């Protein structure tokens, strides 16, 4: 995914479709209210892209429903009119998951931000999808509870978006991802029917469709309510920051800590460029060393004291130059702010950059970082690394100058080579940002045609006309009922009900 610093110019991949007929616009407006059915070209611009700003497509209409009933109303109109539907939360996604398709109904869910129920004794919460991730923890924090998944964008990203992308965050090493914290869902299917999956009572005798919908990137339906697992806050958290002469020693420290039986709450690595950027953005006084780790352990206080002392000792043995322990909560928060702002901070040291998201087995970190550095030398480009070391989720940022089309082309090529490096080491093309529009072509490198066809069965069960988010995730379009081989038009394609995006 590509980030641009303000003022940068860049060729955009922008597509247009003819405007929606006025009678359809009126029907949508009748469901959501006049001000919440948006189709003026100047207003549609806002919705042309998500966090992956280099791809832009104008939607046919933007609707902003406020309730499950309004979502049903909109889905039914789209169903009858044969229009594709793309859901959008806060638009912070980094893979183009909420990128419109030409002429689509873009369904913005940011008005659905009610917290519907909180039950501490049964440790769950029921919320609408537009609720902001951090607001969940803020709501229950005073009672000593929190919601574990913490993507770096948590102050703006929505729970609905987290569900679509199965969002992670620094602390998912110990606590798991969104899917481990979603107990149930209410969703609107392609024909406008409403279905409840899972719920606060666990393990109902049914297929785990909740687990399938989480991370399905908006391809299966529109989620309108989410039942979240909430956790009692741990008694203590201990944080330390350690610097290393190179990423190799830092990687060895991570391996040694984990091999000792410690399950850190988070363990993050940054290299020199990322440290420089974080310093520029937040004022943390980190030394500009080759590598740094930021680590949290949490839990029962005595256990934390024990594990943090052990981890610090192991970091020293692995060759740490310096260990810093924050003296108070404010200093700890500043350290984490430095880490969480690192992506955006790179904009201070580079005109443009691509954010990559790949995963490798954590024992391969040192080797893969060397390979990425070698790629950088070969392409003549700088790479900043800031990532979740504990679970091997790399975020190499490839720096370039977008005014030079050749450099931009090289950056894109190199970013793809990084993904291939992850795959060669037995990893994945995405750990938390999703496939979306950006990485669909790479799915065929990670999965066989049979794997992808099997995943498509799930989609065909939910959305046979492929109305929801067409063109995302899968590398080559295939309609439900297609057999591999020669192309034949599908009946729904001939009738204009579906098309190959």
């Amino acid at each position, binding site marked *: 995914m590509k980030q641009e610093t303000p003022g940068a110019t860049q060729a955009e991949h922008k597509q247009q479709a003819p405007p929606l007929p006025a009678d359809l616009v009126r029907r949508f407006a009748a469901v959501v209210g006049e001000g919440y059915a948006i189709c003026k070209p100047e207003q549609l611009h806002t919705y042309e892209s998500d966090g992956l700003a280099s791809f832009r497509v104008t939607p046919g209409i933007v609707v902003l429903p406020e309730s499950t009933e309004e979502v049903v109303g909109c889905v039914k109109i789209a169903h009858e009119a044969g229009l594709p539907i793309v859901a959008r939360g806060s638009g912070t996604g980094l893979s183009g998951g909420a990128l419109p398709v030409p002429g689509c109904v873009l369904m913005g869910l940011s008005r659905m931000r009610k917290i519907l129920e909180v039950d501490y004794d049964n440790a769950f919460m029921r919320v609408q999808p537009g609720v902001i991730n951090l607001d969940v923890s803020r709501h229950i924090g005073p009672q000593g509870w929190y919601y574990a998944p913490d993507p770096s964008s948590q102050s703006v990203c929505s729970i609905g978006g987290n569900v679509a992308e199965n969002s992670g965050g620094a602390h998912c090493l110990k606590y*798991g991802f969104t899917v481990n914290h979603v107990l149930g869902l209410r969703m609107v299917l392609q024909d406008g029917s409403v279905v409840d999956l899972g719920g606060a*009572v666990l393990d109902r005798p*049914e297929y785990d*469709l909740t687990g399938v919908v989480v991370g399905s990137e908006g391809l299966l339906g529109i989620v309108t309510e989410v039942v979240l697992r909430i956790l009692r806050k741990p008694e203590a958290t201990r944080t330390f920051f350690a610097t290393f002469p190179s990423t190799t020693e830092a990687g060895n420290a991570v391996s040694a800590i984990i091999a000792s039986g*410690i399950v850190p709450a988070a363990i993050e690595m940054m290299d020199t460029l990322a440290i420089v950027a974080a310093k520029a953005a937040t004022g943390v006084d980190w030394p500009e060393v080759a590598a740094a780790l930021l680590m949290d352990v949490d839990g029962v206080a*005595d256990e934390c004291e024990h594990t943090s002392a052990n981890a610090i000792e192991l970091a020293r043995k692995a060759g740490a130059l310096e260990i810093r322990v924050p003296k108070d909560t404010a200093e700890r928060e500043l350290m984490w702010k430095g880490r969480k702002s690192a992506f955006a901070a790179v904009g201070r040291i580079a005109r443009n950059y691509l954010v990559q998201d790949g995963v490798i087995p954590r024992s391969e970190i040192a080797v893969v970082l060397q390979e990425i550095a070698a790629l950088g030398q070969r392409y003549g480009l700088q790479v900043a690394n800031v990532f979740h070391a504990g679970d091997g989720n790399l975020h190499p940022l490839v720096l370039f100058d977008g005014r030079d089309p050749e450099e931009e082309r090289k950056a894109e090529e190199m970013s793809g080579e990084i993904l291939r490096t992850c795959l060669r080491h037995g990893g994945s093309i995405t*750990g938390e940002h999703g496939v979306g529009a950006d990485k669909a072509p790479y799915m065929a490198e*990670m*999965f066989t045609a049979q794997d992808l066809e099997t995943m498509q069965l799930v989609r065909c069960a939910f959305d046979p006309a492929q109305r929801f988010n067409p063109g995302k995730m899968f590398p080559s379009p295939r309609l439900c009922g297609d057999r591999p081989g020669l192309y034949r038009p599908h009946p729904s394609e001939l009738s204009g009900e579906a098309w190959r995006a």
Partner: protein
Amino acid sequence: MARVTPGSIDEVEALLAQGAGSVLFVGGGTAMPPGPPVETEISTARLDRVVEYTPADQVVTVECGVTLAHLQGELAKNGQRLALDPPQPEKATLGGIVAANSFGPLRTRYGSVRDLIIGVSVVRADGTRAKGGGKVVKTVAGFDLPKLMCGSYGTLAFIATATFRVHPVPESTVTLRARGGNPVEVVRRVRALQLEPTAMIALGEGTGWDVYLRFEGFAAGVRAQRGKLPELEEVDWPGTAEGTVRIRFGALPTHAAQVARALGPLRARIEWLPMAGLGFATCAAVDRGALEAARRELTALGGWLTVPGDWGPGPASIALQRSVKKQFDPRGVLAPGRFVV
């Protein structure tokens, strides 16, 4: 009926591709629901290899016929374990554990098999081999086929291999018992004190409960937690219930008392996980009338109750569930009549 014991996943693939008629995949038989006879039973007994184990990555891939006890033995050599403790580990296979979503008291801290599985390879009804997830602890590429397989009872595809995240074996363990404890109050106390038990179970026969808590981890943390519950006695962890019928049920954790009342007439030993709101009732024989009455009461509370093969009223999402089944098994040959759909 033919019973075959393939020696490789390729053989399973060939069997299904050539059309084995209606089939049932058989592991250790510890959680197999009854159902109509099938044309071919495929035993996983010889698919018993640990395919890949990288201790440094805390990730292991096994063939479906590996028993839980065998896997735990292999992991223990490196001080690791799969944080799953369903009954009969000597017999229960990993394929069966995934298919039946089997679990034990460790669920309190580590969740169920869906929270530990990270990858799967399957053979579909027509012999198509496919995989989902991966062998890294974090991946969001594609639909989550591993989770779809959890609790699917072999009705969607043959689970050929599964990849799991594993955890370190704790350095120290202590079990405490609250006799005659109210599970809801014990959970409140645990949370108020910010304790983190890895396993918790309430045992009941009749109306009262004995609540067991297990603390695990580094000795310093275990000692500290034990010290905060000075009035509780240290005991051994209770054994798993013996019995021929194992009823499963679920309800909100705060409904513990209503659950005990509803299940009383079954005259079974009740195991209740007070933080998960899930339980088992084990007895020698089941009285149909008492079972139906208990199910009605639990259903009225928003809960559920099943015996293998008797799933109770279908879920609210039954049409969608059937649609998934139809896509994966259009001819309905996989484990017919063994699950809700």
